[in-house]
């Protein structure tokens, strides 16, 4: 075990995958200078401008070209810079990349990774802060990855690059500097098998908190606080929301009898609804409290901190919701 930041994990893993597979290449705006978050720093020096390629400000072409290049036997990793800008290339992702394998009756594969940094950091306002992972989970043909830690970014990026289908890989902009434990040496085992496998970030017995991406850290902080109060929260980090680890979530809720889903995205129509609905459908009789979700209100994200903070799901809000659930008598009307 060594320590590594989220961004170093991103850099190192891409480099390793490019070394092991010459068909892997990356393309996006400003990659030759390291990319907008420096997550490609130093790579052009090793792999040259053909494999770490700059791009014009042409999101539709970046994504559309990746579809063609993937169909022709290469593995493009495309950088969308901010997930918000990927909205300039939705036809290419949803109508083309996601459907090509199926529409053509299995004649083609479209192995590509679409990197879409998501989420709020500070004062980036409505067009640079969105978390739309729920959209892509709703689209047949797409895999959706949302790593919360350096170790997970590492194994899941390797799995995404080796996967034969299009993967929307959503790094969180607020996590780049996060440090964490990472296994030494190259990614081992079968990283593709990690797509769809949740991680029990913290074991607990009183309620299950399901989360992903940056929100996992808020859930962990809340669990810490709750622990001091004698409330034992289990935190499940989904790691990927499609596929999502239904079995792990159901197994945990069977034990705890309570589900709280926490995500940064807008709650209305967020992927938390899918998890809460699935648990309510499947474990209704086992629930000791109604399922609950925490997410952002349905408002655009503001620039001014006091307004921006109104959409943040804080550890305090998570802890408060958890207390309410645990205090709540069985089968009460929430």
């Amino acid at each position, binding site marked *: 075990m060594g320590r590594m930041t989220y961004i170093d994990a991103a850099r190192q893993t891409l480099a390793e995958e490019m070394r092991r597979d010459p*068909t892997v*290449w990356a393309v996006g705006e400003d990659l030759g200078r390291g990319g907008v978050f420096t997550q490609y720093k130093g790579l052009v020096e090793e792999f040259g401008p*053909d*494999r770490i*390629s700059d*791009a*014009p400000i*042409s999101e*539709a*072409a970046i*994504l*559309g*070209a*990746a*579809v*063609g*290049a*993937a*169909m*022709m*036997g*290469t593995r*493009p990793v495309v950088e969308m810079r901010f997930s918000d800008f990927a909205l300039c290339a939705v*036809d*290419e992702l949803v*109508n*083309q990349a996601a459907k*090509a*394998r*199926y*529409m*053509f*009756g*299995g*004649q*083609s594969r479209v192995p590509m990774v679409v990197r879409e940094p998501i989420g709020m950091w500070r004062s980036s306002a409505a067009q640079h802060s969105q978390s739309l992972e729920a959209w892509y989970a709703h689209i*047949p*043909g*797409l*895999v959706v990855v949302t790593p919360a830690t350096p170790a997970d970014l590492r194994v899941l990026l390797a799995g995404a690059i080796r*996967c*034969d*289908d299009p993967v929307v890989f959503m790094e969180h902009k607020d996590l780049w500097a996060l440090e964490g434990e990472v296994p030494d040496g190259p990614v081992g085992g079968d990283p*593709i098998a990690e*797509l*769809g496998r949740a991680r029990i970030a913290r074991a607990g017995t009183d309620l299950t908190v399901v989360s992903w991406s940056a929100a996992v850290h808020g859930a962990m902080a809340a669990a810490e606080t709750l622990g001091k109060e004698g409330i034992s929260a289990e935190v499940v980090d989904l790691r990927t929301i*499609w*596929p999502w680890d*239904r079995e792990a979530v159901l197994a945990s809720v069977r034990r705890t009898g309570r589900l709280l889903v926490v995500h940064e995205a807008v709650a209305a129509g967020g992927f938390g609804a899918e998890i809460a609905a*699935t648990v309510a*459908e*499947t474990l209704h009789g086992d629930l000791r409290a109604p399922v609950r979700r925490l997410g952002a209100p349905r408002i655009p994200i503001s620039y001014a901190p006091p307004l921006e903070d109104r959409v943040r799901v804080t550890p305090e809000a998570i802890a408060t919701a958890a207390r309410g659930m645990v205090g709540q008598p069985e089968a009460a009307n929430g």
Partner: protein
Amino acid sequence: MTARTAESPGAPPNFDRQRLLDQYRMMCRIRAFEEAAVGAISDKLVLGAIHPSIGQEAVAVGVCGTLDRADILLSTHRGHGHTMAKGADPVAMMCELFGRAGGCCSGKGGSMHIADFEVGMLGANGVVGANITIAAGAAHAIKLKGEDRVVACLFGDGAINRGPFLEGLNWAQVFGLNVLFVCEDNVFSSTTRTSTMTAGPGAAARAEAIGIPAVEVDGNDVLAVEAATKELLADVRRGQPRFLVAKTYRLTGHTGVDPAPYRPAEEVQEAWTRDPIARARAMLETAGYEAGDLAAIAAAAQREMRAAYDTARAAPWPDSDLAYADVQDVGDPRMVAF
């Protein structure tokens, strides 16, 4: 800045008679395929929309028939002719249109997603202009792998008003990719006369403003289209994208069921006088072929496609469990919970 116009050789003294005969045969087969497919609509055998290429066969044959088998083709919603000219099997195509087992996309795609990767045909597309960036990307992979194959990307006159036209052409030129862009100008975009919604001098000028040399050709003259394509492909194989505008006319409606009342009758009549198949036949007669033999080729094409129709009609439906195949490798598409 005006695009060079490749002169229409008509029947040049020294042209290859046998070659033209083959092209004539392919054009007859495409025409017959389209007619059989349109007929199958009223017979309730083709259930989805189809976009016939009747009148545009010389573009399909002149461009796609000039490609090597290893070369790549990206087509449009009006792609039956392109696909056949690239070498696809019309029986598998007809089965696809009928949604039957044996269809080249297993019945999942239909007319608008027809494809045959075996012959380098990487798909029609239901989204106008979407194939342009995909074609650039296919050529990008060819460059990265150091191959000398080319990619031909055909699209209609209406597609030049979509953003991906600009982005895809700029991409191909910036990266020096083996792409031949072909604008198949059949005057219409659905029910709209394209010129009414297109500003400026047109497709060729737009390509040249992105640094891609463009040539305009009579799209109803198969020899002219082939000659222009051959000339441009020489540059394309060296990493220099090129642009071809083939001027033709959509002799039928937008879809197989569109009577197209928005077109003046005289215009349509005049267009029929430029029917690419009739013109090829005339050249071949001048070149000494018997009218009877040429009619026999057309008749054989009709019989072949009638047989394809019968085969497709007789083919079974695909196993509905195929609906769950080839979605993606990971995850379960079924609604496990309910």
